[in-house]
């Protein structure tokens, strides 16, 4: 079974919702759609208060190449344009829409039949993805069209599809693979066409044998697409680790997958590509796992973007009495939420409700230099040392030790028997060191 050699941890998987089929969440009475749901420049709002919009209609236009369009996820009337605090905790402009019915743009093909005949050319596919506002669905929300457009002088020889879903609790990708396998494989072949590669590899952690089996069966009908079981080990689904596991290439420090001739996309992204290209449907809904040990009806819900997280939690049986923490994303890299009115965005993969007793950090004690963080680091850095240096304010030394390369997978923090908040220090160090590097560059330019 394929895996990356160094580091990694084995958190309890808690995939409570693996057996729960995707349910469509009823459309809420109002939605709030933020303009920045991606990495890059925020989109520019092109609608006004009082406008009537249809489902799938463009409401905010992308600004520049690294940016994406934002579409209305419902039909109705724009009640206001204001700000909202998104699930990441940032305040940003947003379009508030009161829902009236569900009238889709006529250009969207709502026929659910599988359409495997790809007529668009490579450039048309990339343009369509850009128009449809597609971003990576795995969490980082990087605009898809940027990744599909190979920069001048680079080449791509294999497309990698991330179905690892290594975060505990989350099952949205798993369910997508089981229920939309056909569409996903077609989506993969569409991206292969856009990238002009004849090979694609899908990596899935071996704790999802049904998904592996299912996609293997479907992909056997497609030329060049293979499915591979990956060892269950966090962070198997991290981009660099996945590349190492599947094709044994190491992305050089500070570089991108394209520098080792590959592009990585997520399973759910492949589905979104299928919908955009074959059905002309912009990205305005996604599957979100709502789960937790005390949640009454945990499940995987197909949700319109902009639906409040409160709505989702209500659908899952309401907030359990013993909730101590609400996390958007998985327990390893997700963000703790402050308010439940935050909207679901394109990158929201799951909501995990932790019980009070699970939600406190462990008590901190002195580092005993056991070296477990060094062994757990997927990038073979030395977290204990970088954290100590940051703690003492020795940022230059922390930079020498490579703190800026930390991918924030949290394996070190997870494993630390002394309960030291390693990742907190590493993040602080990384931010500071990157800022110092920018300042140095600016100074150099000034001279």
């Amino acid at each position, binding site marked *: 079974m394929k895996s990356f050699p*160094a*580091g990694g941890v084995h*958190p*309890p998987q808690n995939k409570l919702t693996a057996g729960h089929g995707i349910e469509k969440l009823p459309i809420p009475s109002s939605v709030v759609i933020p303009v920045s749901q991606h990495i890059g420049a925020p989109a520019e709002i092109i609608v006004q208060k009082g406008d009537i919009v249809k489902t799938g209609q463009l409401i905010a236009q992308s600004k520049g190449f690294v940016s994406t369009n934002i579409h209305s996820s419902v039909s109705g009337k724009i009640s206001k344009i204001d700000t909202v605090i998104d699930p990441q905790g940032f305040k940003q402009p947003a379009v508030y829409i009161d829902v009236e019915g569900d009238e889709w743009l006529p250009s969207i093909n709502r026929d659910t039949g599988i359409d495997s005949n790809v007529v668009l050319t490579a450039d048309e596919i990339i343009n369509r993805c850009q128009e449809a506002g597609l971003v990576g669905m795995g969490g980082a929300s990087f605009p898809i069209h940027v990744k599909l457009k190979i920069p001048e002088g680079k080449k791509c020889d294999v497309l990698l599809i991330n179905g690892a879903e290594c975060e505990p609790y989350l099952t949205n990708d798993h369910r997508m693979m089981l229920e939309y396998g056909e569409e996903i494989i077609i989506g993969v072949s569409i991206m292969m066409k856009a990238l002009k590669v004849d090979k694609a590899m899908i990596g899935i952690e071996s704790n999802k044998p049904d998904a592996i089996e299912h996609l293997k069966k479907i992909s056997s009908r497609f030329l060049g697409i293979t499915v591979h079981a990956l060892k269950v080990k966090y962070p198997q689904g991290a981009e*660099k680790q996945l590349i*190492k596991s599947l094709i*044994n*290439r*190491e992305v*050089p420090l500070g*570089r991108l997958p394209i520098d*080792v001739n590959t592009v990585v996309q997520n399973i759910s992204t492949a589905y979104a590509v299928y919908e955009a290209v074959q059905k002309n449907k912009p990205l305005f809904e996604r599957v979100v796992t709502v789960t937790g040990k005390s949640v009454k009806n945990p499940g995987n819900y197909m949700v319109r973007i902009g639906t409040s997280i409160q709505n989702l939690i209500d659908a899952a049986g309401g*907030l359990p009495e013993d*909730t*101590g*923490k*609400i996390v958007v*994303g998985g*327990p*390893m*890299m*997700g*963000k*703790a*939420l*402050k308010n*439940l009115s935050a909207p679901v965005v394109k990158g929201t993969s799951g909501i*995990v409700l*932790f019980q009070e007793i*699970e*939600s*406190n*950090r*462990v008590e901190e*004690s*002195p*580092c*005993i*230099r056991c*070296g*477990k963080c*060094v*062994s757990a680091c*997927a*990038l*073979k850095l*030395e977290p*204990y*040392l970088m954290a100590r240096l940051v703690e003492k304010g020795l940022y230059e030394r922390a930079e020498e030790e490579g703190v800026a*390369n930390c991918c924030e997978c*949290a394996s070190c*923090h*997870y*494993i*630390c*028997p*002394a*309960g030291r908040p390693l*990742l*907190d220090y590493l993040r602080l160090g990384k931010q500071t060191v990157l800022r110092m590097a920018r300042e140095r560059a600016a100074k150099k330019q000034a001279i």
Partner: protein
Amino acid sequence: MSRLLNVSAAPHAHSNETTKKLMYGVVIALVPALLTSIYFFGYGALIVTSVSVASCLLFEFLIQKFLLKKPLSINDGSALVTGLLLAMNVPSNLPIFIIVIGALFSIGIAKMSFGGLGNNPFNPALAGRVFLLISFPAQMTTWPQPLGFATKYVDALTGETPLGAMQRGALDALPSTNDLLLGHIGGSMGEVGAIALLVGFAYMLIRKIISWHIPVSIIGTIAIFTGILWKIDPSQYADPLFHILSGGVLLGAIFMATDYVTSPMNHKAMIIYGIGIGLLTVVIRIWGAYPEGVSFAILIMNAFVPLMNRYIKIKPFGEEVKNG
């Protein structure tokens, strides 16, 4: 919403591994060796162990409470491990006051004066042992014979250790491999019973308390080094198996050199550290004044650990591009 929610940065999960669990894991791993030494040395082993553990805990408590005025951490298990290991490193008929002095040195000087757990450069139990060996050479090298509960704590029949026999050149008087494995030999409490120590090793590997790197590189180095000497002249040098099974090699390699605080952080440095201990041990045993060299070897290598942590680095992921 009236309820207060926790908001903290990721990760929101923890392995549940704690310092305390790791330390008590080491204690469990020491149980077979402890039982073996009680079996062979009787009440003396019990007395020495109890006194050593009790005084280590007491000194840590007193120093934290009255000198450092810091929060107490005596239940984290580290002082317990130091106490057990100190006991394992001394003869089972050592007078009580000497044990107490050893515990005071281990905890007071070697551990707490550097800032307590996590900050001590030298293994506290070994520092205590070597302090006693230098201060009380006679008592520290009088070894009761392994007669079980017939072994008296005071005025015991004494004998020599296998390494002592080797030191005076009596290669034909060395115990059999069987006796070495089972522990039917003279020596420190923890030096007897190779099998019991190996059981502890297996347990710690399975529980992932330690990794194989340090013990295997120490034992491997000793095997190769003494093997070469033995090949050159078997009449003058003991065979590698004897070297590994006698004295403190197993106890040192498995329990002392792997002490978290005083050993290197990455696997590469761990192996170099282990090789260093192995080489020094053989050099001291064969050409040094003391019959046994494991303690000194580990302490000397402890001193190099900060340097090793600074300069022996593993290659970060992606630093060297290996495509294939």
